[in-house]
């Protein structure tokens, strides 16, 4: 537990988009997917996921549809829209640039 890093503000949306980019997922699934792709290194407050999902649906980046989960529970599935995919691509690039720059700045010998 202590190994997990707190999320930077604004990064949750990016992670949700990334998680949903691999196929339709329900909220809990997204949570698991984030844990999986980050090797359990990131701490996402479970409830906070939902306002994020609503926000992304409103922005037209995700679309939601009711369906049935693997173990036969009714759940809402989220899927990336074309705009969402574009946004994910963009934000990923932005993030990489930022991370590289900050990494370089922090690593520089003074």
């Amino acid at each position: 537990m202590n190994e997990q890093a707190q999320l930077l503000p604004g990064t949750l949306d990016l992670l949700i988009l990334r998680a949903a980019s691999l196929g339709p997922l329900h909220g809990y699934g997204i949570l698991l997917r984030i844990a999986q792709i980050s090797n359990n290194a990131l701490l996402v407050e479970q409830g906070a996921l939902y306002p994020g999902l609503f926000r992304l649906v409103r922005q037209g980046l995700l679309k939601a549809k009711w369906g049935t989960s693997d173990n036969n529970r009714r759940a809402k599935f989220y899927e990336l829209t074309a705009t969402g995919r574009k946004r994910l691509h963009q934000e990923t690039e932005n993030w990489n640039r930022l991370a590289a720059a900050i990494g370089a700045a922090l690593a520089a010998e003074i």
Partner: protein
Amino acid sequence: MKILAYLRALWDVVLNRARINRELEEEIRAHIEMHADDLERGGLSRVEAERSARIRFGGEARFKEECHEAAGGMFIDSLRRDARFALRLLRKSPGFTVVAVLAVAMGIAANAVVFSVLNALILRPINVPGGQNLYMIERGKGAPTQSYPDYLDIRDQNRTFDGVVAYDIAPAGLDTGGSASSVWVYEASGNYFDVLGVKPYLGRFFHSSDEHGPNSSPYIVLNYAYWQARFGGDRGAVGRTVQLNKYPYTILGVAPPDFRGTEMFYAPDFWVPLLEQENVEGGSQLNRRSARAIELVGRLKTGVSAAQAATDLNSVAAYLAKTYPAEDDRINFKLARPGLFGDLLAGPVRAFLAALMVLAGLILLAVCANLGSLFAARAADRSKEIALRLALGSSARRVVRQLLTETLLVSLIGGAAGLLVGMVVLRWLSQWRPVPDFPVNVPVNPDSTVYAIALLLALASGFLFGLAPMRQVMRADAYQIIKSGTTGSAGRRIALRDMLLVVQVAICAVLLTASLVAVRGLVRSLHGDFGFSPQNVTLVETYLDMAGYKGDAARAMQRRMIEAAEAIPGATAAGVSDRVPLGIGWNTDEIFRDDSTDTRASHEVADALKYSVTPGYFEAAGTSLLAGRTFTWNDDKNAPRVAVVNREFAREVFGTAEDAVGRYFRNSGGRMQVVGLVENGKYETLAENPRPAMFCPTLQSPSSATWLLVRSDRDSQDVAEALRSMLRRLDAGLPYTVRTWNAEMASALFASRAATVSLGVLGVLSAMLAVTGISGMASYSVSKRLREFGIRIALGAQRKEVLSAALGRAFWLLAWGSAGGVLLGTAATRVLALIVYQASPRDPLVLAGVVMAMAALGLLATWIPARRALKADPLILLREE
């Protein structure tokens, strides 16, 4: 795409808040259960697993709220909360709320009504498809009438119109079995309905193909309203044959309900082909090029501008001037908006309505100023509460939004109430027939534009008067307010409010000046010198051709009527004229000098009004004879042609009025001798300058239009009764109306009456606003300084000192506002002089009236606050703190 999704989500939120809540709950439950499933698989008991999953999910309620906010629902939600809070506050101070709502309602109602009338008369094109492409073709400026031969040339030679229609308004007698009643018709060219693009409601219309020369197309197309009124909406009416002036006419069809002809002020009972003029009017002018009595409206071809059309028309005019120099010398054409007799009525109507619109706008502005200061005072009283909210972490934006919700609520409720009042007034106006027996009636029903404008105005004014308290909140220093209980120094804000008040008082004074000037003008015109005296005269209007009297038979009937009328007990004089001055419509005649051989229009020395009168007319009308003689029954067809002229005629034609009697002049009919000179009068409108007029003997210049004037000092009711029984004796089948000349004057006085009433209403509205404004300001300043006054009184201050401290400012504002308003009003009443006869602001009575009215308003408005200031009891006040 993004916007669409956003709007959809917002839509969902607004409409389906409950459904979203349900779904959200289900989604969260699914989440927790799935989590619990996983935990259960890890070895926990089901109960334990679910408990753990719930804990790890976190605060459900908080996240739900956040979800709503994320989905865009918070705005609506808090709006609902604000509205509820505002309603509660407004209910808590019903007096304030009622005053505020009433003020907004007055402002909106005034604007909705004035705008509606403006919209109906000026802005909205005639109610036919593509109405904005219709133009009236005028002769020069302000002369809307044309002759039929010119019409044919214009119709056939122009290259810029899809079609040109001609029409004329005429009275006629309709007999559907039983006795004839008088009706008003449009005589319209055959292409009238086709060019206008109107489709029949029932049956068919007449077309160009129905025209086969004069009196060949005896068809009638009914107006929808007349069909309802006279035929009870009977579909069997179409195809029936009725008697029009004793000639059989077939009813072809019914026009749609929303088509009421091409003149706004004149809705006809039905339409007949123009070529029927001889049968309808008892005489035809259609082949006379100089008889200009019909109006033309053309539909522009698509892509042609009005300027191009005017150029095109003037090449037709050049052709006419060259080909028919005797009649059409120097003729030229101009385009005007149709519907108000071209520019003849449109000019003054537009000027007056524009002025009224500005005044109504000013009233609304005054309402805003008024409520702005009221709400600001209210916000100041609530400054403690607001400061507390700010201190407790509410954002200034949130507080401002709450205050704004309150003002918008007031403005919307007031706006709705105002619109309701406006609609009632407008419905009444639409049904109002201001001139007896004449189809003047204007449909001013509000349309969607009016509703939109009213809503917009209400919202705008809500924002405007919501701004005043907002400044106060934004500047508020929570710490200072809670500590000392007041907002501290606020010098500039007060100055702004003072300005608003001065503006408001000035608006009120402008309106008061204008309405007083109008009232004075009206009173004067009622007792003015018209060149005739309508008091004690009873009129009988009848059209002899409706009952089949033609030519000499009509003359003989007129003479019988006069002789019978003279025999009525109490009758002192009786005479017949073809029209009454200041009635509806007039004839003019081109006058030439006796030595003039060239009777082209450009050589005329005067354009005189022409009346055909019998012996006895001048005595009955009360027109004084200045020199010479009036007519006798010997001035007939076989006698030399003679005329009685007025002073202005003599001045314009002979250069002097002194020796006019005995001299000769020419008109289109030949040489005439002046045998009498009478005083000048008013003929077309009350506001006109002296106009030349001539009177011809009926026997030499026959007309079947008959107005019998009977002067009698008996009660007008008795005279009317005697006249009715006389007419029954003479011919029971004759359609007629009897009324006093004063009643008939309604048409001449209509414009000034309408102006006076509308200005008066606006004046009263603004006076009420000024009273609430001043008293609001005064009582606020008194309540703020009440403690000070209490202490002053306790220390022995005189009443006068307290009063001048409390109300001096209000009085100064009042004085400044009034002075400015009177000056502005004096300037503004120049417009009024166009409509109201003898309207002059340089009238000591008007000035005194305005000053006194403003002083009275000031006293009324400051009475209550003054009493409150004087009653200030320091003990009670100090104990309250």
